[in-house]
Structure formats: structure tokens, C-alpha cells
């Protein structure tokens, strides 16, 4: 008997024309690791919320959900809370109380556990997660990854049988994300905990999952173990789905003529085995020519000289004698660990924060000497959270009021507004409230607001966080268009695959300074861990290949690549 049995489930939100879930049939065995993936808005989150009774959304449900053979709504209130635990996407807002220990105890207190039980469980959990050191810390001193681990621990203290995770790593940096997934994997293997996780980046969870469910528009499109679902998707006509597969699988599929289900690689080890002979057969030429050229002969548009910055008098320097030159037309990405000071650097370059030492020059002028109004017009800054930008009730107002404000300062504002609304595909959203947009749409709206002032430099703080692959491609196209119009882009990112494929140069921020700046090819091919999965697979043969495209080009030549990639 399956642990969770979903039969013919349909769900419609109030006042919605279309069903959010259509005839969903899924059964989950005890101890299974299930990953639900698919584009944003495909119904992943809705499905998970329906499995967690306390937070079931309002709407019309049709169909049955059985938990251990009983309809879900017949389980006792207490049992439902204890046995089915859920961790949400945003690490910050799930936390209710002030210190780690209070937060851990929260769920147990709610259910009226005795003090001895609570103590015992917290003690056990802390040693499993290594939380002893931070037990009495205020939660706001924790990093995003630590917060998410706290959220997981706090749910686990109720000893659930099923763990529901709604894109738990979408807001984390790659290291935090890997750590989190490793813990979940351990829980699954060592305690045989049933895990149902929604995720649109398969890259990291591919080798962990027993079953992957691919959803689209509220329907289950494909289902199976990692290999069989890859096989199904690769055989299906719909090429845009290929982007959801991990880069290794895609690389394999492009290189191999007749794809074998058994051979499909789930990790670097298997990928090496599967494609090694293919690389030998093909005459490979290691010439990655796709690096966009940087014109170093020109004067830098932004010149950062020896800046030091710290937040408070007694705190260590977060930026320490940092220098960096950015040239016109460059697409520079700044990489680095969590808390390395990437966002701070971006704010200093935008002239929003004044460094204690050193200067930032914009076109040869000291940035802090430029009048504020002019400064913010010429240097566009897009913060990590687009919500910060919205003031008005509708998207339309947000854009037109902004255009009105800029009318006297920027030429041809109306044409520009039209152009961007078109380019970003905001047209259909104009009457909506900015808060009701999806994450990606919010990002696009905020970016349009910033771009309306016709900036020469655009500073982006982790814009691709939480984007699904389809959205990433459309975002990439937008960036390409912007670069072609002559805008210089500086982007802070954790997304190695995106950076490798699109940036013209990469810089690593470590220990308060830029330790290296190079083209993506040189930057990543010299790294050992901090590089793409593709590069780790083929580096002995093709040390300079860092993206799937590079490998294909090296093996099959330019023409083939164009044809293949035109599909996506």
C-alpha cells in the first residue's frame, strides 16, 4: 500500500478560469525521495499545499488524497501536524520566534509536549545538525542556509513521516543548497523518511531522487526514475522541456545518436563513463571561441580604486583595498561565497554607499561628486528583492508614473517605455498589482523601472534567483539585447551555469578583494571545484569547454550546434 495516494485530483482556485491541477494521479511509497519539477506556475506548490492539511488553499477540490489508506481529511488534527512536515521556500519568513532554541521548540510547544520530551528531542536534533553553538543566538544572525536548516530541524522535531519541501533551496547559495540537500538525503536514507520536494533546478537533486515527476500546466506530463524520465523527455517532441534536464544529460543526448536509457548520466562519474568514448571518436578541437571580447584598450566606465568598506567602526572590513576596472560593453559577473560582500560592492559601485577609503570613478568622475539625481539616472541598480521598488497599485501606474517623473530628464521616454514593455512581455500584466506577479515577472518589472532612466551601467544583484529554465533563457535574451544597445552590465550571481554561458568576464570576490578576473573560459577552466559540471566531466579532453554548447561545438562543429540550439 502506498503511503500517499493521490487519485484523480483536480483543484480550482476561487475565481480562476482554469484548474490549477488537472487529473493528477500520483502514488508515493514510504521512504521514497520524490522530486516534482516543472516551470513556475505549473502547480507544484499547489500540489504540496494540498498534501499539508493545515495550509490547504481555498478552492474547489475534486478527487481523493489518501494517506496510509485513509482519506487525508479524516486523520486527526494532531496526527496531520506531526506526521506531515513542511518547509517552505523563503528561509526568512518561516521563522516565527527570536532565538534558535525558541524557534526549535515552537512546534512542540504548540502540541503541548512536556518539558522533558522537548529537551530530549532538541538535544538529539542539535547534535545531528550541529546546532549546539548557535542554540541561543538570535535568528537574524544566521545565514540563509543556516536559517533553512533551522526550519528543517524545527519541523523534524515533531518526528514527521513525510517531509514536504517547497523549493527549499531556491533562495540559497550553491554551498548552502548542497548542504541542505545532503541533510535531506541523509534523512531519507538513514531514517527512510519519505521526501516530496518541488524544485525546478534538477542539477543538484537529480542523483538523489528515486522518482521525478514533471508537471506542466497543472498536469503530470512525465513520471519515473531520473533515467527513465530523462529518456522520455529526450524522446518527446517538445524541445523546450530539454532545458529542465541537467546539463550532463543534455550533453549526453546531443553527443549520442541512439540514446540508451541505462546510459543516461545522473552525475559526473557516470557522465564521464557515458561520453568518454564519444569524445575519442569525434575529432575534438578545443577552441572555445564564444568568449565575448573585452576591449581593454578603452577607458574603463567604472573604475574602483583601493576601496575599503565596513559597516560599523568595530567590524572587520568587508571590502578590503579592492580594485576593479569595468569597460564599456562588458558583461561582468561577480562571484563569491555568501557574505563575501558582493552586494555591498555593488552598492558602493552604484554610489549608494560611501566607502571609508578609496574612490569609485564613473567615466573618470568621482562617483560621489556626481549629483545624486544624475548618478542614479546613469547607473541603474537593481536590488535582490524587486518588492523594494513598488509603490503603486498597478503595474501600469508603476511604469507611467516613473516615465512621467523622468520626462524632462530623459529623451524619448515614451518610445522607450513602449519598447521595454514589449521586450519584457509586460503588456498582459499592466492591470495587475505588482505584488501579484510571479517572482520572475516582478524582477522584469523592477528592471524596466530601472532601465527607463536610460542608464549606461546596469548593476544586477542575483537576478536569476528562483527562475525556471524557460524564464532564464528569456532573461538571457533580454540581457543580450541590452548589451547590444551598449549598456554595461555588472551582475552578482551564484548561478555558475548561467554565468559560464553568458558573461563576458568573471571576477571572484574573496577576503574583501577581487582575487581574479578573467573571461569565463579561463576563469572556470582553471578552477577545480568551482566550475560547471560539464567542465568537470570533459576537462581532461577539453579543458576549455565549460558549457554544453562548447562541447558540442568541439565535437560536431559550428553548424550542428546552431541547428540544435535553435530549437530551444
Amino acid at each position, binding site marked *: 500500500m502506498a503511503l500517499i495516494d493521490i487519485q484523480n485530483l483536480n483543484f480550482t482556485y476561487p475565481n480562476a478560469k482554469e484548474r490549477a491541477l488537472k487529473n493528477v494521479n500520483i502514488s508515493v511509497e514510504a521512504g521514497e525521495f520524490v522530486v516534482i519539477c516543472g516551470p513556475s506556475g505549473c502547480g507544484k506548490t499547489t500540489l504540496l499545499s494540498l498534501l499539508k492539511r493545515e495550509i490547504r488553499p481555498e478552492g474547489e477540490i475534486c478527487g481523493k488524497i489518501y494517506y496510509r489508506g485513509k482519506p487525508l481529511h479524516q486523520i486527526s488534527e494532531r496526527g496531520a501536524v506531526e506526521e506531515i512536515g513542511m518547509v*517552505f521556500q523563503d528561509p526568512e519568513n*518561516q521563522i516565527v520566534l527570536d532565538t534558535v532554541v525558541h524557534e526549535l521548540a515552537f512546534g*512542540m510547544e504548540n502540541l503541548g*509536549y512536556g518539558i522533558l520530551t522537548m529537551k530530549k528531542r532538541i538535544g538529539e536534533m542539535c547534535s545531528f545538525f550541529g546546532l549546539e553553538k548557535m542554540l541561543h543566538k538570535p535568528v537574524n544572525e544566521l545565514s540563509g542556509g543556516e536559517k533553512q536548516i533551522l526550519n528543517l530541524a524545527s519541523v523534524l522535531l515533531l518526528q514527521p513521516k513525510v517531509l514536504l519541501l517547497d523549493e527549499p533551496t531556491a533562495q540559497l547559495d550553491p554551498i548552502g543548497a548542497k548542504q541542505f540537500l545532503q541533510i535531506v538525503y541523509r534523512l531519507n536514507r538513514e531514517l527512510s523518511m519519505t521526501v516530496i520536494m518541488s524544485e525546478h533546478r534538477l542539477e543538484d537533486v537529480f542523483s538523489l531522487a528515486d522518482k521525478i515527476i514533471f508537471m506542466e500546466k497543472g498536469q503530470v506530463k512525465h513520471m519515473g526514475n531520473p533515467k527513465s524520465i530523462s529518456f522520455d523527455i529526450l524522446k518527446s517532441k517538445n524541445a523546450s522541456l530539454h532545458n529542465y534536464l541537467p546539463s550532463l544529460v543534455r550533453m549526453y543526448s546531443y553527443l549520442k545518436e541512439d540514446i540508451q536509457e541505462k546510459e543516461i548520466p545522473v552525475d559526473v562519474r557516470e557522465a564521464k563513463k557515458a561520453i568518454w568514448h564519444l569524445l575519442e571518436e569525434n575529432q575534438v578541437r578545443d577552441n572555445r571561441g564564444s568568449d565575448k571580447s573585452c576591449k581593454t584598450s578603452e577607458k574603463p566606465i567604472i573604475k574602483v580604486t583601493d576601496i575599503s568598506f565596513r559597516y560599523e567602526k568595530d567590524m572587520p572590513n568587508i571590502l578590503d583595498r579592492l580594485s576593479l576596472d569595468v569597460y564599456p560593453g562588458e558583461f561582468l559577473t561577480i562571484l563569491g561565497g555568501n557574505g563575501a560582500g558582493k552586494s555591498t560592492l555593488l552598492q558602493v559601485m552604484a554610489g549608494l554607499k560611501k566607502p571609508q577609503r578609496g574612490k569609485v570613478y564613473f567615466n573618470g568622475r568621482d562617483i560621489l561628486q556626481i549629483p545624486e539625481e544624475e548618478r542614479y539616472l546613469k547607473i*541603474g541598480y537593481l536590488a535582490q528583492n524587486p518588492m523594494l521598488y513598488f*509603490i503603486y497599485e498597478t503595474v501600469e501606474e508603476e511604469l507611467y508614473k516613473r516615465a512621467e517623473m523622468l520626462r524632462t530628464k530623459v529623451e524619448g521616454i515614451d518610445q522607450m517605455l513602449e519598447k521595454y514593455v514589449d521586450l519584457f512581455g509586460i503588456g498582459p500584466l499592466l492591470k495587475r498589482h505588482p505584488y501579484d506577479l510571479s517572482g520572475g515577472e516582478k524582477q522584469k518589472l523592477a528592471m524596466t523601472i530601472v532601465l527607463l532612466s536610460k542608464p549606461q551601467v546596469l548593476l544586477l544583484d542575483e537576478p536569476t534567483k528562483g527562475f525556471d529554465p524557460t524564464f532564464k533563457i528569456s532573461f538571457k535574451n533580454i540581457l543580450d539585447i541590452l548589451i547590444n544597445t551598449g549598456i554595461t552590465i555588472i551582475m552578482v550571481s551564484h548561478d555558475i551555469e548561467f554565468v559560464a554561458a553568458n558573461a563576458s568576464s568573471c571576477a571572484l570576490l574573496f577576503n574583501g578583494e577581487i582575487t581574479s578576473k578573467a573571461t569565463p573560459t579561463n576563469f572556470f577552466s582553471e578552477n577545480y571545484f568551482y566550475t560547471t559540471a560539464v567542465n568537470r566531466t570533459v576537462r581532461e579532453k577539453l579543458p576549455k569547454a565549460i558549457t554544453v554548447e562548447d562541447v558540442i561545438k568541439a565535437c560536431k562543429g559550428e553548424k550542428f550546434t546552431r541547428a540544435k540550439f535553435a530549437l530551444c
Partner: protein
Amino acid sequence: MNRGFASLHPSPCFLYYVSLVILAMIIYHPLFLSLALCAQILLNIMQDGGKKLKESIKYFIFLGLLIFLINPIISHRGQTVLFYFFDNPVTLEAVIYGFVMMMSLLTILVAFISYNLVITPDKFMFLFSSIFPKTAFMCMMAMRFVPVLRKRSQDIALVQKTRGTDTSTGSFVQRIKNGMQIIIILITWSLEEAIITSRSMRARGYGITKDRTSYFDYKMTKRDWTVLGLIILSFGNLLYCWHCGIGYFQVYPEVSALTLDIDTGLFLAASLIYLAIPIVIEGAERLIWL
């Protein structure tokens, strides 16, 4: 910090500070207050080397002196006129009363520094939650959101500056308007995010049982009971003295002489026992490590 006096259960510690404040306010005896002040300074030094005290001692002395000086200037009660200040009599009684008030205030302020070292917010919540569990829970949630809201408003202010909404430049009215703008964004955004918090609370069973327990890791041990008993006894003793007028020091209308009779001697001895409790506990802790 969890050693010495602070290693005790929060209840005896809390009771001690409350009783000290009460005594410092009702017993207006210069010798008692001087002893109490010395004891509190010593306690502070033993607890953190006087670090926290040093930070604020300047303001305390200023405040104390202010009261010491203002009282004789505005109060002309008392029999013994010392001199005339702008045709107003300055009496010995008023000067002494000012001194006593200063000592009382300083004792309370210095004790408060030590209180902050001993009764951490967590301990306070524990004490509070046994009387008002709901309010204590709300306080802990509020404490969580203070830094979150501060961070959010800073982020909003930074970004809105680039859109021309700046609270640091422009006319007064414009700045108020801009500030309001930031607060509006802060509120709408925070309400939006609070939905997630409430989902997370429900998902972990908030509100499904009436008898919510609370997790605090404090237990009364034998040592705590002993100290609690000691505090209650010595505090009660002093209260009794005060009630009977032992150790009463008359200021108005005429200041009484500071005599050391048997009554006063006994009273001061009782005070010493009471004041020594935390110091002995701190000292005993040190002896272990000698």
C-alpha cells in the same frame, strides 16, 4: 554569561533586584544607601570587570549630581540655613535630602546594569510567560521582527533613494512625505510576507491545542531554593525594620544626627547580610577557580 549569581534560577535573581529597588526607594538612610551603592558597584566589577558600568557611569554621575544640586535650589524646607543663594535660603536639610536622593537613584541605576547582565531577555521571558503566556509569546515574536523590519526599512530607503524618494534631502514637508512612502512600502511588503509566517505557524500546529506548553530550560535546584529563602528572609527582615522605624533617618524638618546606637548597628548588620548575598555567591564562584 552563566556563572556566579547569573547561574541561579531567574526567580531568586529577579526577586533580588526588585527587592533592592524597593529598599533603595523606601529606606532613606545615607549609610544604608552608601553601602548598597558600594555593594552594587562591587557586584558589577565582579560580574564583568565593570565594563558595562564604565560605559554609562558618566551619565549616571551627571544625573546624580543634577538631582543633588537642584534639590537645595528649589526646596527651601528645613531649619538649618547654610547660606543664601540669590536671596533664597539653602538649607542643610535640603542638601542632605538631595544627597540621599542621589544615592538612591545611583543605587537603582547601577543595580539595573547588573540586572541586565543577569536577567537576559530569555530569562525575563521565562518569568513573564508563567504569568502572561500569551503576552510573552507575542513579545518573542515582536523581538524577532524588530531586526527584520529594521533591515527591510534600510533596504527600502536605499532603493527608493535611486527613485528620488530620499528622506535626507529636500524640504521638511517633502522629507516627511518621502518617509511616509517608505513606511507604506514597509507595511504592505511586511503584510505580504506575514502570510508566509502564518502558514508556517499553522503548518507546525499553532492553535490546535488550548494548553500550549512553553520550553524553558530552567529548574529550581536546592541551591536556588536556599538562595531564594535567604533573600526572602533578609529582605523581610529589612522591611520589618523599616516598618518599625528602625534605621529611620529624619531629614525634614530638622536633620537628625547620624548616631551609631544599637538599633542602627543591628539595622546596618541586617543590611550587610542582605547586600552581601550576590557578592558572596560571586566570590564563592571565584574561590573554586583559585
